[in-house]
């Protein structure tokens, strides 16, 4: 073989491979802000729920938390709540009923009702069962300020015809959940805003299973993490198989009953939950719209919401029983 001594001329191909020598590309994206910028007085947070079910009804009163609330990295517990236990809470309606609520004193069973004392929970003593079409007024007085809210009970939701259990593929956890699926007739003549819940109810308290949630009626929807909010415009007249994603019922003992609830809520409450939901998507980063505080029906700078809801519910046995 003969070698000829050509001078090599650069060819296009050889010059395409050029990304070398970059060893020190370093880029960070977040940095903690000086929290002293944000020392402002705390706000009062009021969460109330009145349903058309048998009372008592509950109102939580607490302070807001600081934006900067570190703790976890140092394994110290972050500040989780600042209950207000010295407020005067009054519930009234437009047909003459008034009741001053009483502060819930921590029961002896602190493991189960720990949360109650966390929140500054007040409950009605002598208030009649609420009804559709009646307007309810909530007043909370605290340190010389009065926070007020009112809402009119919406029409009752449709009756739940049937509940089945379906597998639901979670894209996030990449696992299959067993969740309830509901069937009902959607009344087309009225504009409804729905809120769906379900929980495992154990006839006998079972402290061993933290997935069981035995808080009283009318209170648990105030603290339960999983719910689904829907504008009925997205639903068909006959709703079949509407999945309610939430906790996987496989983790509940088969002896538990599954309680499924549909609440109809006001347009204002729907907007409140919608905005809260938006906040999950909106982290205030550059990919997000300008954030704003969630709307509220509580006056005088209070946070939270006074919700009135009509409820339709159905208990079904655990499918694995």
């Amino acid at each position, binding site marked *: 073989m003969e070698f000829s001594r050509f001078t090599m001329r650069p060819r296009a191909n050889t010059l*395409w491979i050029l990304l070398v020598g970059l060893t020190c590309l370093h880029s960070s994206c977040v940095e903690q802000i000086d929290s002293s910028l944000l020392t402002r007085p705390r706000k009062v947070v009021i969460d109330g729920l009145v349903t058309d079910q048998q009372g008592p009804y509950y109102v939580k009163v607490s302070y807001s938390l600081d934006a900067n609330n570190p703790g976890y990295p140092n394994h110290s517990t972050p500040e989780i709540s600042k209950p207000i236990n010295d407020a005067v809470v009054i519930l009234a309606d437009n047909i003459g009923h008034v009741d001053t609520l009483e502060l819930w004193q921590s029961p002896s069973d602190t493991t189960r009702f720990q949360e109650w004392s966390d929140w500054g929970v007040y409950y009605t003593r002598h208030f009649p069962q609420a009804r559709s079409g009646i307007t309810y007024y909530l007043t909370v007085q605290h340190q010389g300020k009065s926070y007020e809210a009112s809402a009119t009970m919406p029409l009752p939701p449709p009756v739940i015809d049937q509940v089945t259990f379906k597998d639901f593929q979670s894209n996030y956890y990449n696992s299959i959940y067993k969740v309830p699926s509901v069937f009902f007739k959607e009344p087309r003549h009225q504009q409804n805003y729905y809120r769906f819940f379900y929980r495992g109810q154990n006839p006998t308290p079972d402290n061993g299973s933290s997935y069981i949630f035995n808080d009283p009626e009318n209170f648990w929807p105030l603290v339960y993490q999983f719910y689904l909010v829907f504008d009925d415009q997205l639903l068909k007249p006959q709703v079949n198989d509407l999945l309610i994603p939430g906790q996987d019922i496989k983790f509940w003992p088969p002896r538990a009953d599954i309680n499924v609830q549909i609440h109809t809520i006001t347009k204002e409450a729907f*907007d409140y939950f919608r905005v809260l939901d938006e906040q999950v998507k909106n982290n205030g980063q550059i990919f997000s719209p300008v954030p704003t505080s969630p709307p509220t029906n509580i006056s005088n700078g209070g946070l939270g919401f006074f919700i009135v809801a009509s409820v339709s519910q159905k208990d079904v046995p655990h499918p694995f029983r």
Partner: protein
Amino acid sequence: MKYILKPDREYSLYKKFGFLLLWALLMASLPAQSQQQLRYKKIQLQRTNGTIQDFLKDLHQHYQINFSYDEHILPQKTFKLYKKSWKLQDLLQKLGQQAQLKVKYVNGQVILKKWKKVKVSGTIKGQNDNEYLLGATVYVPELNIGSVSDARGRYQLLIPSGNYTSVFSYIGHQSIYQPLKAQENISLDVKLRPQADVLGEVVIRSFRDASIAQLTSDQTDKHILPIENIKQIPTLAGEADVLKSLQRMPGTQNAAVGTTNFSVRGGSYDQNLILLDGIPLYNTGHTAGFFSVINPDIIQSVHFYKGALPAKYGGRLSSVVSIESHDQAPKKLQIRGGVGLISSRLAVEAPLGKKASFIIAGRQGYPSEVVHLLDLHRTTITGSSQDFSGDYFAQFQDLYAKFNFRLNTSNQLSITTFRVQDEFLNRIGGWLHNNKYRWNNLGGAITWNHQYNKQLNSQLRLIYSDINYQDEYNTAFNLTTDQWTSGFQQVGLTLDFDYETSPTSKFNFGISGHRHYFKSAEFKEDITSHTSNLPAKQALEVGLYMDHQLSLGNKWSFRYGLRLSGFYNFGEGVRYVYGPNQQLAHTTQFGSGQVIDRFYGIEPKLSVRYLLNQHSSLRFSYNRSYQYLHQLSNSLVSLPSDVWIPANNNIKPRFADQLTLGHFYRFGQKKQFSLSSEIYYKQTHRTIDYQDNAQLFFNRNVETQLRFGQDKSHGLELMLAKNTGKLTGWIGYTWSKTERQIPGINNDQVFMPSFDRRHNLSLTMSYALGKRWVISSNYSYMSGTRVTLPQGQFVVNNRTYNFYTDRNGYQLPNFHQWDLSLTLKSKKRKKWQGEWIFGVTNVYNQKNPTAVSLTKSVPFHPKISSHSLVKSYLFGWVPSITYNFKF
């Protein structure tokens, strides 16, 4: 007598009007003075104000200087001189220039004659391709007179006879300085050499032409950016970027530096009309706006108007960015390309026979590959390292092609087409919520330039633009994947005429019609598998315009025009009427083709320029513009979910009035410096913003979420540029203030938009180190962005949520950043030419925050979650390396 009587046409005129001969008798009696003595005679004037005749009489009485002239040629107006002591020669030159008189010294006499005007005309061509150059300038510095060539490269100047110099220049070409012996009408054809190759030498000379053009332009606040300059500005990851280079200009602001969105003089991001060969670009950003969709390989020039928008452009309130792509035919096949960290490019340019040529240019972007390759990590507030690469995926492509056909001397046809494609995945909070965006753009234009005669040219343009979006998003709570798709389409026809009645008077007029088609938005809900639709909408936008450029004398130039615009929504569609509380009162159905809404706008425009002297000018402009399309943007950066919607009975068209006053000044020995200063006041009516907690996404009645008010902006813009020499560049400074007041937002109180930065300083310069090295630097210092900050948290259903300050109620720390790049060019070789660009963005690793947000260790769980307020910034220091080649 003999001195003033010439056997020409003037003689009979003199006789006809009974010409006056002064001092004829005195001529003989006075001793002859040597001409030299006369020229340098020291004069102490008695006055600084007066007509020419007053001055001449004084000179005669006090210094016994004899003048010979015809009284008719002396203007009657009063002149003002700035001093009293003069040399005769200087004084007469000054007076002669102002009164358009020619001064001659003959035998101790001074003869004044009217300027004889001669016509200088010819053509300007590119040397390599022999193509006529449209918009090339010819300028006579001594007279401060200039003109611009038309589509056939023709120019014409009327100047007093004499010997001068002329400067011919064109963007991307070397200027020619040519002696001009204009005793008679002359014809002078020139050929300009292209400014080497784009890669080749560093070309800033074209800036000199820009400064001349700027001096004589009657347009306030117009900037011309030669592509060479754009390519020299150091940018993020070494990607040359037109839109980011515009952000270096005074008057433009941006809330998230590093992205392509920009606000001009307080206008929202959607108020800029960005045209590529006349095709409006509705999506300008790749990868959520971090890089612009415009491939630098195809650009010939960029014109950026921010104050007096020319009447031929309509539909936007704040600015026009007109990008013209390459249309110069190469002599032979030419291949250019580059390899960079973010993208690689390749462009092929070649002639097709004698009369046609084409350019095809493509880019493949792989921004996330670099992130993955380098195992880029980000530090969380907890100090632990979090894998960043998994959170982020992005890639893009764009392909561009243009064909030019020179049919004959009076007809030219060009076809432009491009396609842009993007994919972008963004995860928020690691796993909490993610968005996968896909979008693509398709655009095309057919342009036919026709010349009827030497005065009249026309351009007929058919454009097409199409965008499709898709957004897939999941949230952890609902465990679902929802899908949203939409799009937008525009087809338009414009017919534009240039009519030059004389070298000092030029008309531009035409009509345009655009059909906008807002594709139906489709939303697929995972839970119900329910698909819902927002119906498609269509609209027609028309414009009729005329504008007249008129020069009066040497000093004054006027440009006045009017644009009449109209906008029609037509069916099939629904008109929604809302009650006082935004509740739907009633709806009206419209059939196919029926007009639902109609709007009209009258947009007057006026610019005046006054030349103070050879080196400085004053300008004033007033401008009104209308905008019928609105963009609903959901984020700080540009995402495809930023949808465009038409004006309707609930969202009335916006309009803006703007006043600008400017001064332009060239100085330095070689006039290498220029200083431009401008002040403006702008008021935007019916400005739009969302109400608090608006539901924009997939809302049939999105107008209920909008609120309308007013923007008031004013500011001062200064720009000092050095245009020639080894060191070139500019310093821009803007002081500006924008106040927005919208009933229903922020408790009806005035607030500032996020991009409102009070001070903005930018320093951009390049220095040539020998023949092969160029170092470029870029420094910015500006007031911080305004943000809405989480003020605290509260717990709902055992999840934590934020509450916030007033809208944009908090200002982030001031922004400052220094970028640097070093270019090494290969030695001059015949075939292969290469160029390395080494760059560092954010040299001293300044962590400039763009947003403040709360991070939660365990999202929404108050019992175990800690949360911290963190500033996030887009990037620390980013080195880059790019190789460009050409053969």
